[in-house]
């Protein structure tokens, strides 16, 4: 096949013509410089040509074959490419014009339903500062109402010390950081808070994100890629669902908080991987769940989870957004609650916007994994860093919590227990979640719903939502602010049952808790007595 190259050279110019015409033209004036080059080129070309001539003389058929081969290669390279697998139809320009003319897109967004319109019109609007008591701009009363709707587990939202420090910070750092962390957006207070968080939780390192939802959305796809495996709880919150979607990993779901079902899935997954070969023989495998579930208030049995993780060689990604600052003796979250070394949780995601009354989120992990996120965590790399004010607010909140953990947490637990006990006694109400969870979902019990429906008609989701909205309205009349747990119904994987979410705070007094429970009780009795 060596001769092919020569043939190619020769064939492209067409054989048999005068030799001199094939030689590259050389300028006569720079003979001295190009003389040698020219001689070499001349010589090679002559040799090549002679070789072809000889080969043609010896074996003309072979030369013919080679020429054919070259012709084929040229044809193959230049011919029209076609795509395999598309079923595109060839259309004339006129037909395309007609189709374009005909095409009628749907409206960008659908019209709101009547119920949604009402919900939007009556949406809660807070006037002035948030806290355990708020003034409403939306409701009928101008008197302050008790706030059981905002996440303010430790009462940091209206902490005057934090506010004072916030103003000091404003005078030093301004508001926005005006850039992503990579481009001069990393403040010294960011680095301090990162260290503080890692130390508080007991992990190696931490990284800050500027919004809690986006933290989850960035961390999971940063490590779990296409081809990797995620085993996730069915009851995880929407942020985790979206993160899994974005990661494009293979996902297996296990029944909500059911460790035996989890074990079954883990076994299944490992069995499927046996005998797999090649590049992706051992994908990264993750168990993804929440410490304290946003949608139910349940707590993951982390001890069992860690045991399973070790046995089946998975890694844990734990969303501690709701458990951080709430569970455990020190308030360090689920690992603290179960007394587990935080290093067992490979990626620990937390929020600063819920218990700490600041904004943003963080991820605790090994140093290498945190550094990896600084380039590959999309929400970190591609968005502005957290404002200094909120960073310092979070930092102060942790300091305060570290200084008096009992003060905050005992209060919170007592209030939670009191609230749960009082709510449980209300007939027609179903109270979900673990005993320690200050996040309480209350639902109308199925029996109550059956009783309320005239002539046994079926309840639609909108009907239940409407009833729950009435319930919150009633409670608001009694001076208690409650909210229905909101979801984007059409995008949730498994839409949780409609509920009212009550958030207990350590800053609530005993009396306020009782007042809330009482308001719920009377609202429920008023609502359930009405037939519809």
């Amino acid at each position, binding site marked *: 096949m060596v001769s092919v190259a020569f043939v190619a050279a020769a064939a492209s110019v067409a054989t048999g013509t005068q030799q001199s015409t094939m030689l590259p033209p050389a300028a006569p004036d720079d003979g001295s410089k190009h003389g040698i080059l020219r001689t070499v080129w001349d010589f090679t070309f002559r040799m090549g040509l002679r070789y072809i001539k000889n080969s043609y003389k010896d074996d003309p058929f072979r030369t013919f074959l080679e020429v054919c081969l070259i012709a084929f290669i040229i044809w193959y390279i230049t011919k029209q490419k076609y795509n395999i697998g598309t079923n595109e*139809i060839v259309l004339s320009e006129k*037909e*395309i014009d007609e*189709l374009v003319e005909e*095409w*009628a*897109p749907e409206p*960008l*967004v659908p019209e*709101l339903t009547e119920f949604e319109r009402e*919900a*939007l019109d009556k949406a*809660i609007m807070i006037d002035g500062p*948030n806290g355990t008591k708020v003034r409403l701009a939306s409701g009928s009363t101008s008197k302050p109402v008790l706030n059981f*709707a905002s*996440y*303010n587990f430790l009462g940091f939202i209206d902490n005057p010390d934090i*506010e004072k420090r916030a*103003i000091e910070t404003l*005078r030093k750092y*301004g*508001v*926005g*950081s*005006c*850039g992503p962390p*990579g*481009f*001069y*957006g*990393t403040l*010294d207070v960011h*680095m301090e808070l990162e260290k503080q968080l890692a130390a508080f939780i007991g992990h190696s390192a931490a990284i800050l994100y*500027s*919004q*809690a*939802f*986006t933290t989850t*959305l960035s961390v999971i796809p940063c490590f779990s890629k296409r081809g990797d495996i995620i085993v996730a709880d069915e009851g995880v919150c*929407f*942020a985790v669902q979206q993160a899994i979607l974005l990661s494009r990993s293979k996902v297996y779901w296990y029944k909500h908080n059911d460790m035996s079902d989890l074990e079954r899935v883990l076994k299944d997954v490992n069995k499927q991987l046996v005998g797999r070969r090649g590049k992706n023989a*051992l994908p990264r495998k993750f168990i993804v769940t929440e410490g304290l579930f946003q949608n139910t208030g349940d707590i993951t049995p982390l001890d069992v989870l860690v045991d399973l993780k070790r046995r089946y*060689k998975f890694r844990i990604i734990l969303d501690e957004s709701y458990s951080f600052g709430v569970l455990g003796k020190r308030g360090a979250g689920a690992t603290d609650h179960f007394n587990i070394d935080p290093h067992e949780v*490979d990626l620990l995601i937390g929020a600063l*916007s819920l218990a700490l*009354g600041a*904004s943003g989120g963080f991820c605790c992990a090994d140093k290498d994994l945190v550094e990896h996120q600084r*380039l590959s965590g*999309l929400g970190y790399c*591609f*968005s*502005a860093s957290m*404002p200094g*004010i*909120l960073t310092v*607010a979070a930092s102060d909140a942790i300091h305060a919590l570290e200084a008096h953990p009992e003060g905050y947490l005992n209060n919170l637990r007592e209030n939670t227990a009191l609230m749960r006990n009082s709510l449980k006694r209300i007939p027609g109400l179903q109270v979900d979640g673990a005993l320690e969870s200050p996040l309480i979902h209350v639902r109308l019990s199925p029996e109550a719903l059956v009783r309320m429906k005239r002539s046994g008609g079926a309840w639609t989701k909108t009907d239940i939502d409407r009833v729950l909205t009435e319930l919150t309205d009633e409670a608001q009349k009694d001076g208690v602010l409650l*909210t229905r*747990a*909101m979801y984007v119904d059409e*995008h949730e994987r498994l839409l949780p049952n409609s509920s009212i979410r009550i958030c207990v705070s350590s800053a609530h007094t005993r009396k306020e808790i009782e007042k809330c429970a009482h308001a719920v009780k009377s609202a429920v009795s008023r609502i359930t007595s009405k037939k519809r």
Partner: protein
Amino acid sequence: MGKGQRAIQNYKSTEFIEQVRDADGLVVGAAFKAPATSASLLQTEPTSPPERTVALPQDKPREGELDSVPSFILVTTYLSYLMLIVFAHLRDFFGKLFHPEQYVQLREQNGYAPMVSDFESLWTRRLYGRIRDCFNRPITGVAGGHVHLLDRVSADFNRTFEFTGRVRKVLNLASYNYLGFAQSEGPCADKVEQAIRECGLVQGSSRAEAGRSRLLADTEEMVARFVGSEAALVVSMGYATNALNIPALVGRGCLILSDELNHSSLVSGARLSGATIRVFRHNQAASLEAELRRSISQGQPRTHRPWKKILVVVEGLYSMEGETCCLPELLELRRRYGFYLFVDEAHSIGALGKRGRGVCDHFNVDPREVDVLMGTFTKSFGAAGGYIAGSRRLVDYLRLHSHSAVYAETMSVPVLAQVSSSMRMILGEDREHALEGQQRLDQLAINSRYFAQRLVEMGFMTMGDPGSPVIPLLLFSPAKIPAFSRECLRRNIAVVVVSYPATPIITGRVRFCISASHTREDLDYALEQVSEIGDLLMLKFHKKTAAANKKHD
């Protein structure tokens, strides 16, 4: 060679400016009549008279006037990268041979797959690692016209850093502080302080649940007024504004046509939506039209059913290129093809246009013609977060159906106060500081044009449209990228350098972000230093042309 081609393309879009100096010593475009003062520079904005609504801005690339990137640079740049990659592999090879313990985390261990694969991390470990000191430089205080950097050194080739405890004040050409609202003093900061005293810090709930405050509602109204649309929705984070709202607009059976250089948040949002995603050539309406004709006529893949909706997603001002989108052409196409247009104004809002209303103002287009206007407050307003503006129907729907409104925390009080106070100032509604907003806009326009023109004059290769506050300067070679950054830092200037993967591999660049808070002295100092560095690093690829032009004058 696709990327090389694109580099040439990018380069060609650089505007070439002939030099005429005005009384101020400022260089102005020769296409315009000699301006009397520097303020008249503003009239030379491509914002132009209203009759030019559909016509292209006249300062689009004039082909043929520029020669292409010298092939010498192309070849050497590719060769340098090749060298770097070969050495990276060699170092990995020998490293694994002699120090296997340092590579443990890249191997399968104890039945666990490595968290970060060997191949994926090669770039980070071996190429990015060499120049890590140029990124994530920590600062303290406000990222204003000047910024205080925490001095740090590395004893182990950038693996770890140690702080020396010194703080150095450097000129800030890196932060997106276009209008200079990154301040800890002044009327905006006072308003923020007042807001914190009155309303605390955060609301502790999502907007749809109990997070709506009067301050939030007022700010949303003001944003709508500012942008010129019916209503607006405010989101607490810029990235989330795109990533969490696009899924509410389109879904399965819909098509997203996305510019190839769109920001990562737009890509995330598009992926989360579940819609089919197709990409068109950067800023090329012809490419978009071809894709539209093909997509509409063919319908959905396999089934050929018509698309439910088509959403075209573009950015107003591309932050790595400094180019504005071809909005008039896009609107023309929108009229013809009936798609919905989503414009990400993250960098253009507040920075472009005579009144600072972004790219619509820049092209003199009615903002209501754009279906979805998205923007952020991080840049021009010195705050954080973003907004979506559009028709009332759109915004009402998003208030109940967008992921950010339902699940994510609402914008905090200080940020809201910063947004509303700075916006009020630009709008001229702040009586005490009625003129300051317009002054800042003018200052930014003058500064950006001045800086860009002087760079071109010196013979540098810059990119971007005139008037853009983002001015990228091409460095090409990977070795020049950290060198430029370090040299600048040595001369007390903070700049952002970017290379692959944020840009095409060939066109590594430094990006200057001009601010209204820069004085003429600041800019002159920077230009002088940059010029010196340019000589040092041989970056004045156009020196001959520039010199020739000077002689011509």
